[in-house]
C-alpha cells in the first residue's frame, strides 16, 4: 500500500525526482513548470538528494547541460514549458540523435502570441518530430506514475523522454495522490549504468559525431527503430508498474469503447472531463466512448486503428492547431493510422479545442458527441476542421 498524500502535479513530479535522486539537473524557470526546479532545489539545499543542481541562463543551456551530463554517464533531468521548450528545440534534436536518455518534465502551455500563459499543447506538439519519447498525463497521479516509469523506458531504447502534463490544470491543482515508498521507487527505477560514457579514461569515446550524407540516413533509420522498439518497452514497464502499484499503464487507455458507436481521441487532462460527459451520456443510453492517448511518441497507430474500427464516427481532439488550413496533429495521425490499416468505415472530424486555457466543460464534450451522433446517423461528415467553443 502506497502513501496517501495530496499534491499538485508539479509537486508530484518534484517528489518523484527526489525519490529517484538523479545525478544532474540543469534548469531555467518558466511558468507553469517553475515550481518543479523550485521544489527540487529545496531538496538539494536540504541535502535530501545528491543531485548537482545547475541553474543556467536559458533553456538552450539547460538542455545542453543535460546532454553533457548524460553523455558523461549521469542521469540528467530538466523541466520546462512553452517558449522554454521551443528555446530548447535545437538541443532536443541533439539529445535524441546522440541517443541520450534524458528525462524532461513538461507542464504544457500555449505558445505566444497573443501572449498567454495558460494550458494547451502547442509547445509539446511543436517538438513532436524531435525524436523524444512523449508520455502525457490526465491526472497528477498519472504525471507522478509516468515520471517513475520514464527512465526505465528511455534508458532501454537510448532515447530521451518527455513527461507531459497540463499546465495549471494538473500542474497547480492539488489532488489526492498515492505515492510509492522510497525503497520501492529505487528498486523499480534502478541504477543507470551505461555501457559507454565520456567519464573514465579506460574506455575513451566520442559523442556528437559529424555524419556526412553517406551516414546520416543510417543514423536516422537506427533512431527510428529505437522509437518503434519503445512501444513494447512502454507496455512492459507499464505492466511491471501495475504489479507494484495496482495502477496499470499502456500506450492508450480505452474508456467505454467495447460497444461505442461514437468516440473521442484525446490527450491530457480533458480526458477526465470527457469521462464525466460519457457517464452522463451512457446514463441516457448513448453508446459513446473515449480513447486517451498516453504515449504520443511512439504513436500507437495500430492500437488506435484497432480501437476505432467498429465506431460509426469519431472526433480527434487537438489542443493545438497545425495551421495547415486542414487539421491538427492528432487528427492527421489518427487518419493516417486508419488508412494504413485499410479501415475506411468510421467518419472522422477534428476539433481544435482548449487553446490558451479556454475552459473545456462537460457540456463542451457533450456537444462534440452530439455532432458525432448526427454524423453517424446521416453518414455526412460535413466540415472536418472545426473549432470548439469559439464565439461565432
Amino acid at each position: 500500500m502506497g502513501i496517501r498524500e495530496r499534491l499538485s502535479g508539479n509537486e508530484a513530479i518534484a517528489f518523484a525526482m527526489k525519490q529517484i535522486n538523479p545525478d544532474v539537473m540543469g534548469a531555467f524557470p518558466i511558468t507553469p513548470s517553475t515550481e518543479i526546479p523550485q521544489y527540487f532545489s529545496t531538496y538539494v539545499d536540504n541535502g535530501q538528494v545528491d543531485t548537482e543542481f545547475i541553474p543556467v541562463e536559458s533553456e538552450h543551456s539547460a538542455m545542453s547541460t543535460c546532454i553533457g551530463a548524460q553523455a558523461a554517464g549521469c542521469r540528467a533531468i530538466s523541466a520546462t514549458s512553452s517558449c522554454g521548450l521551443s528555446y530548447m528545440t535545437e538541443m532536443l534534436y541533439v539529445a535524441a540523435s546522440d541517443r541520450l536518455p534524458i528525462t524532461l518534465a513538461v507542464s504544457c502551455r500555449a505558445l505566444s502570441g497573443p501572449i498567454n500563459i495558460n494550458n494547451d499543447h502547442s509547445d509539446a506538439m511543436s517538438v513532436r518530430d524531435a525524436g523524444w519519447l512523449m508520455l502525457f498525463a490526465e491526472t497528477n497521479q498519472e504525471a507522478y506514475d509516468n515520471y517513475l516509469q520514464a527512465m526505465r523506458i528511455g534508458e532501454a531504447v537510448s532515447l530521451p523522454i518527455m513527461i507531459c502534463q497540463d499546465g495549471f490544470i494538473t500542474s497547480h491543482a492539488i489532488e489526492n495522490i498515492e505515492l510509492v515508498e522510497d525503497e520501492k521507487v529505487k528498486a523499480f527505477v534502478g541504477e543507470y549504468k551505461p555501457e559507454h560514457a565520456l567519464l573514465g579514461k579506460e574506455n575513451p569515446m566520442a559523442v556528437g559525431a559529424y555524419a556526412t550524407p553517406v551516414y546520416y540516413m543510417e543514423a536516422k533509420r537506427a533512431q527510428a527503430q529505437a522509437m518503434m522498439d519503445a512501444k513494447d518497452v512502454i507496455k512492459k514497464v507499464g505492466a511491471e508498474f501495475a504489479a507494484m502499484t495496482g495502477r496499470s499503464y499502456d500506450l492508450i487507455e480505452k474508456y467505454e469503447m467495447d460497444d461505442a458507436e461514437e468516440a473521442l481521441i484525446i490527450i491530457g487532462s480533458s480526458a477526465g472531463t470527457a469521462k464525466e460527459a460519457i457517464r452522463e451520456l451512457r446514463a441516457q443510453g448513448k453508446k459513446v466512448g473515449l480513447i486517451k492517448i498516453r504515449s504520443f511518441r511512439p504513436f500507437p497507430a495500430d492500437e488506435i486503428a484497432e480501437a476505432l474500427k467498429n465506431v460509426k464516427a469519431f472526433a480527434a481532439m487537438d489542443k493545438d492547431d497545425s495551421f495547415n488550413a486542414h487539421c491538427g496533429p492528432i487528427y492527421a495521425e489518427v487518419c493516417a493510422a486508419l488508412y494504413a490499416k485499410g479501415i475506411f468505415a468510421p467518419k472522422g472530424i477534428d476539433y481544435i479545442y482548449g487553446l490558451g486555457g479556454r475552459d473545456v466543460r462537460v457540456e463542451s464534450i457533450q456537444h462534440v458527441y452530439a455532432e458525432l451522433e448526427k454524423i453517424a446517423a446521416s453518414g455526412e461528415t460535413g466540415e472536418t476542421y472545426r473549432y470548439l467553443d469559439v464565439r461565432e
Partner: protein
Amino acid sequence: MKWKASDMTPSVTWKDLTPGCNIFEGGTSETVETGDWRTMKPVLDMEKCKQCLLCAPVCPDMSIPVVDGKRGDFNYFFCKGCGICANVCPFGAIEMVKDEK
C-alpha cells in the same frame, strides 16, 4: 554491432552503425580516411625537393611524414588537396594535379 571507427565505412548498414554515430575508442583520426573527398592532389618531384621542410609544418593534417629530418612522399589517406604545401614550396617541387579515382 561494430564498435571500431575503422568499421564505420560507407558500406556500414544502419543496424551496424553505433547509436548516435558514437565512437568507442580514442585516437580515431589515425584510422579514419579523411582524404576521400579531395579533388586535387599534390605530387612531389623528388628531383626538385631540397628537403627544406617548409611544407611539413604548414600541412593542416598528417599528410607529409617526416622521418630523420627528411620528408617522405605524401600520405594521401589524410590529404584533402588544399594545396598549401605547393604554395609555400620555394622550388616548385610540388605540383597540384586533378585527382582521378
